[in-house]
């Protein structure tokens, strides 16, 4: 019992490394917020572009989206960070983490939005078009409002999964929570910083999970 307390809940270690963990929290939040905004926006735009049904464009979207859904995020980050400099593209760890996870989230979000668009009944398109609405007006005013509602549950789940993956950014030296905790663990020769990291992740992501439940019930509607 004592050993558990010493190794995981050492108060002196906690006090010493709290500031660096908090620095990590801000980096994680900063990164996660940027990824959610850009990932969902890009995914939405790709799904809307796909709705135009331009064959070569759609093939390209499907190819890119499938590649980013197939690759583990850690592999994408490593390639961007360590391989791209060889072709003259050099990005900071933070930018690499942001770009990698944005592309992954956008890919999943595109598929989810696209499924939502497809699941809106053809009769909705026909009713709108029969009153003289154009393709874009129908998409914007009739189809997307319904599609987006259908996509909220899978989208919130996927968003949480991807934002948690910011922990992987430790491999490209981003000073987020896990990086700070690992460094602190090495310096202190004690695992208490990892406990602090776990608590920090809970503090950030638990409200997000609760929020997602609220969003799901708020935007669901009875047929």
């Amino acid at each position, binding site marked *: 019992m004592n050993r558990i307390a010493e190794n995981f809940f050492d108060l002196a270690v906690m006090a010493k490394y709290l500031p660096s963990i908090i620095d990590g929290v801000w980096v994680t939040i900063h990164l996660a917020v940027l990824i959610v905004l850009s990932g969902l926006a890009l995914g939405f735009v790709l799904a809307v572009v796909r709705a135009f049904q331009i064959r070569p464009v759609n093939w390209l979207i499907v190819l890119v989206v499938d590649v980013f859904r197939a690759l583990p995020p850690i592999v994408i980050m490593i390639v961007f960070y360590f391989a791209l400099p060889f072709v003259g593209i050099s990005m900071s760890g933070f930018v690499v983490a942001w770009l990698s996870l944005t592309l992954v989230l956008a890919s999943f979000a595109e598929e989810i939005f696209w499924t939502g668009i497809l699941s809106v009944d053809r*009769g909705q398109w*026909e*009713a*709108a*078009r*029969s009153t*003289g609405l154009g393709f874009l007006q129908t998409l914007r005013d009739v189809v997307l409002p*319904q599609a987006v509602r259908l996509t909220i549950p899978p989208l919130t789940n996927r968003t949480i999964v991807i934002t948690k993956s910011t922990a992987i950014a430790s491999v490209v030296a981003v000073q987020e929570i896990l990086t700070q905790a690992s460094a602190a663990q090495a310096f202190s020769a004690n695992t208490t910083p990892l406990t602090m990291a776990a608590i920090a992740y809970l503090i950030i992501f638990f409200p997000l999970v609760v929020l997602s439940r609220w969003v799901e019930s708020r935007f669901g509607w009875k*047929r």
Partner: protein
Amino acid sequence: MTAPLPMLDLKGVRKSFGAIEALKGIDLSVARQELVFIIGPSGSGKSTLLRCCNRLEEPTAGQVLFDGVDILSPGIDINETRRHIGMVFQSFNLYPHLTALGNVTLALRRVLKLPRDDANERGRAALDEVGLAERAHAWPNELSGGQQQRVAIARALALEPKVMLFDEPTSALDPELVGSVLDVMRAMRESGMTMLVVSHEMGFAREAADRVLFMDEGEVVEEGAPARIFEAPAHARTREFLRRVTGH
């Protein structure tokens, strides 16, 4: 003296889906203020014909003249044309994320570009015409099937179309709700609306239609006054169909 221009004039309209020819050269003229009824077995091409009239289906060949203009010609603005051709669907197709009034006013605001207040006023008037003024703020799922279909009719009527297309408007309704929709259609007829109706409501056809067309296998088999078609059908196929639907 020339005959007045028909509201709708279909000439040799053909439609193929792959190898299947759904319409085999249809000629149909609908005069102003006329109510033409189309009956026939399922798969006979009735709905396809109706959907060719506003290009929800693109005819493979032929002409569709609406108020004298060929709506299949390349230069046509189909969105502008469609707002003059109202359509009512079997499955209502109300927008579930908008209230009854929202359903009716969407095209008024987006297509006619009316300001919100004007659109609402006109939308309420259209809902009033179908007897649903007091349900303006109801959501589609709060309305009965008959009420939903009347909102769908109001949505089309609000644009003040020159012709209304009805694609089996009562087929999805419980029997006790059919009457309310037919009452609205009867009132439209009395106000002089040109109507092309695909339906199995033979009683309504007999009472309200100027002309009845019987279609089978992508062709118009015969047409005539309702009394003539129902009481003295000339073709064996018509007799067979009527015998099956009326159960005599």
